């Protein structure tokens, strides 16, 4: 529909650097194009984050390097070299050195704040007294009586519940990643999707703008419960989308569990736990309209021979929207399934 997207102009547009006519063209396009509008929002958010980054002082070593470079340049300079060229070269060298230092200091080694909530949690096996900081590669551990909370950069917080062991994996602005070895965490994230990740033995929880609880037992089973927004749980190249009010239980080294609403009938939930042993009939017969969340996921997980039964059950619960054909859905056409999911989500 839109042949000329404005992705390349968005950064300049947000920064107010576009000429008036081009800015107007971009605005007109943004009003009509949801994709570019979403991208524009992400750029605005990214710029807001950058504006909040603390400024870092350049290290002393930079000045001695610059002085050395100056001496070298002076000895090589002939009177014919204009002064502005020298000034320009120096400014460029300083900018490069500052950028390199900023990158080193802020992108690879950001520390997060961690605070004791109850008892005596530990960071890297050392007791945490009050508040502290934690960086990539370090572990937080709580016992039966302790709890801690971690401020995840600028995007949210994670509560570490009792009997939990969790490691900070990455603390970059574009990738905030934890690894939950055991126990339970509660995440409250306010950021564009796919900036916060939690690895577990059963898969990875990818934040899509949400609040959720994630727990892992010693057996590696993982249970995800989402209270706001939604989470994508991924493993073995597959994903389950878990919206607010729904949960997902995943075995280690298996495909992500099929999500279900917490208010679903108990018989259906039990059948989902035993899924694979002839429990499909129960799941289909016990499902309500909003359980199309579960059925939509089942469509691509059941044997090809059972797919039509799942399709027919969804179609019986809620009208199949325009653009979704039975044939394409049964062939697991990605575009068709996504179109259907977007429509079904209005019943979830």
């Amino acid at each position: 529909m839109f042949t000329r997207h404005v992705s390349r102009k968005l950064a300049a547009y947000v920064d107010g650097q576009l000429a008036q006519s081009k800015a107007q063209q971009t605005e007109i396009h943004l009003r009509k194009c949801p994709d570019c509008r979403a991208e524009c929002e992400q750029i605005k958010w990214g710029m807001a984050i950058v504006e909040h980054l603390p400024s870092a002082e350049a290290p002393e070593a930079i000045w001695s390097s610059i002085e050395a470079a100056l001496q070298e340049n002076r000895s090589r300079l002939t009177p014919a070299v204009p002064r502005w060229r020298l000034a320009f070269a120096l400014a460029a060298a300083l900018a490069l050195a500052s950028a390199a230092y900023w990158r080193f200091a802020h992108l690879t080694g950001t520390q997060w704040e961690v605070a004791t909530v109850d008892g005596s949690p530990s960071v890297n096996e050392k007791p945490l007294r009050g508040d502290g900081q934690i960086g990539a590669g370090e572990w937080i551990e709580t016992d039966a009586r302790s709890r801690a909370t971690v401020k995840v950069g600028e995007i949210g917080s994670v509560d570490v519940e009792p009997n939990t062991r969790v490691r900070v994996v990455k603390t970059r602005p574009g990738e905030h990643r934890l690894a939950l070895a055991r126990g339970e965490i509660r995440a409250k994230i306010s950021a564009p999707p796919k900036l916060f990740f939690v690895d577990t033995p059963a898969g990875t929880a990818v934040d899509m703008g949400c609040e959720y609880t994630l727990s892992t037992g010693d057996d590696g089973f993982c249970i995800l419960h989402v209270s706001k927004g939604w989470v994508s749980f991924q493993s073995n190249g597959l994903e389950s989308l878990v919206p607010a009010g729904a949960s997902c239980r995943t075995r280690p080294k298996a495909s992500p569990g099929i999500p279900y609403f917490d208010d679903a009938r108990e018989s259906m939930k039990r059948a989902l736990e035993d899924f694979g042993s002839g429990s499909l009939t129960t799941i289909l017969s016990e499902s309500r309209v909003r359980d199309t969340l579960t059925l939509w996921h089942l469509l691509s997980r059941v044997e090809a021979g059972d797919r039509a039964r799942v399709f027919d059950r969804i179609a019986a619960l809620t009208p199949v929207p325009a653009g979704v054909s039975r044939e394409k859905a049964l062939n697991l056409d990605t575009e068709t399934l996504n179109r259907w999911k977007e429509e079904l989500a209005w019943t979830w």
Partner: protein
Amino acid sequence: MFRLGIVACAVGVAFAQGFTFTIGSPVASQDFRSKVAVFVLRTDGCADPTKSEVGGTAEGIMNGTRKSVALRVAATSKPGVYAVYQTWPNEGRWVVNLKGTCSDMNAGAIVPVGPNGFIRESSKFFARPATEAEIETSLKALTQGGNK
């Protein structure tokens, strides 16, 4: 001429369907900023959703007193999809009274809200703004029937 025909058909379908709202949980908007909304809504049957306008009030009863509170309705990243945020107190019983326009068409809805969020099954939709009597009836039903 062919193009004109297509446009005419599209407008015809929109009018045939009528201008109305579809409500859903925030996840339906696919916009992370809506996650704290009470619910989201979509305008259906509007030929140009970017030109639809939606607003309304929260109508409630607190300690036996009738209250009316302005609503916060925000557009999401999808044209024609809006998020409704809570502007009313947690105490009391409340319904959301929605009003929308698209060109010369009107739509209205009454969406009851309980402690667990909006109540889809008891929501009512109209091809016009809801009347005072309809709002009072919904509030009365919410008070008598308890909350979900």
